[in-house]
């Protein structure tokens, strides 16, 4: 079973139809503007566990959707359709 992304319009579709979009998060501890720029351009959280990320349904409805996924298991634990999930950014 390969990963399936829960698209807002199309429901669960194979990951091959999507393009990945990271939500960059610059830590608040970084205050120097140059360091913040560097971090935003190159550094990654690369978290082991639940992450919130954006996926673009390139071979489908061509819209962005938000998905919460556990990077240890590739399990989709939440998506834009989940009850109580925050409104799309």
């Amino acid at each position, binding site marked *: *079973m*390969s*990963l399936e992304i829960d698209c807002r319009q199309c429901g669960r579709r*194979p*990951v*091959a139809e*999507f*393009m*990945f979009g*990271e939500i960059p998060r610059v*830590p608040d501890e970084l205050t120097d503007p140059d360091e913040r720029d*560097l*971090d935003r*351009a*190159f*550094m*990654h*959280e*690369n*978290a*082991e566990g639940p*992450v919130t990320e954006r996926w673009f349904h390139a071979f489908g409805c061509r819209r962005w959707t938000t998905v919460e*996924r556990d*990077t*240890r*298991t*590739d399990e989709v634990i939440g998506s834009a359709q989940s009850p109580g999930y925050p409104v799309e950014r």
Partner: protein
Amino acid sequence: MNEFVERLISFGWREPRPSYDVVIIGGGGHGLATAYYLATRHGITNVAVLERSYIGSGNSGRNTTVIRANYGIPEAVRFYQHSIELYQTLEDETGRDLMHLQKGLLWIAHSELGVRAERARAAINTAFGAKTEFVTPEEIARICPQIDLSGGGVWPVQGATYHPEGATARHDRVVWAYAEGAMRLGAHVHQRTPVTGLLMDGDRVIGVETPRGPISAGVVMSAVGGHVSGLAAMAGLRLPIRSHPLQAFVTNHYQRQFDPIVSSSDLLFYTSQTPRGEMLMGAEIDRQPSYSYRSGHHFIQQTAFRAITLLPFLRDLRVLRQWTGICDMSPDYSPVMSATPVEGFYVTTGWGTWGFKAIPAGGEGMAGLIATGEPPELIAPFSLDRFAKDRTLADRGSAGTH
């Protein structure tokens, strides 16, 4: 030598000491090679390599063992060519049969754009010391008669670069040879010893926390594959790394000899024959960053389709097994071998899909960096601060496949 040679290798396992000059986290090829070269080239033997599972259990045991130097930028060509040369003498140096086999590597182009890219590759390789030449379809047919030059009628072969020094070696044996060599000279290797935390003194790393007790160290080096971001976060360091799964599979025995390693950028796959006769195939990384070792049917389907386009005989074979490794991808597709802003903490990471071929040169370079405090010339361009200095090493030759 036969397969049972493994039993003759003499590892000297010992109990951990409370303190070492150098602690290396990660008992894969890069970590063990660094310990080996610290001992052999610099006489530093008060060294421990900590491995959370067994040595070579991570990406060193999951890669597709391609050794090549046909990269796309001068820094990388020089570095990987040095690694090729170290591999060629490694069997004599360690006294172990590593099943190192020089096969030659064909990198096929199917379009005008591909031909231009391969000609550029041959030019830059020749200029910086690697042996790569552009070959025509007729010469490709001589080197590898199994290739369908019409590319299934869809992907006609327009040309290729031939890299005669392309080779493969047995990955376990490389890991074992470095471990044995380092341990013989007094270095310690501790298996089943995960690092659960870093001991800090202000901004300085002074040791590691393990379930077998704290170990203090003059220098801590991370040679972790796949989980390096979490380790660096313990030192308050952020890395330009995203970890992606990379899958590969082997077929059952192909009853004829298949000499070269064959790659294609346009079709995005590569294949070679293992010493057992299996056809080994790989393609690009999975698109989602992940730490999951799960393999997918989708990958086999796509890669098999591309492979059969170029090598029709593959359609008669069956997939035997499939596996996944976790690759640390850097933004510019080049490795990071460097000191860090955290004193006493060194990293060798960003080995993406090109780590195995770099084991000797990467280990030698990191050993030189730790022993002298100055990065050796070959690895100096691959420092972590290249991103801040706008000196990134974007390498189209590494392609994110093998």
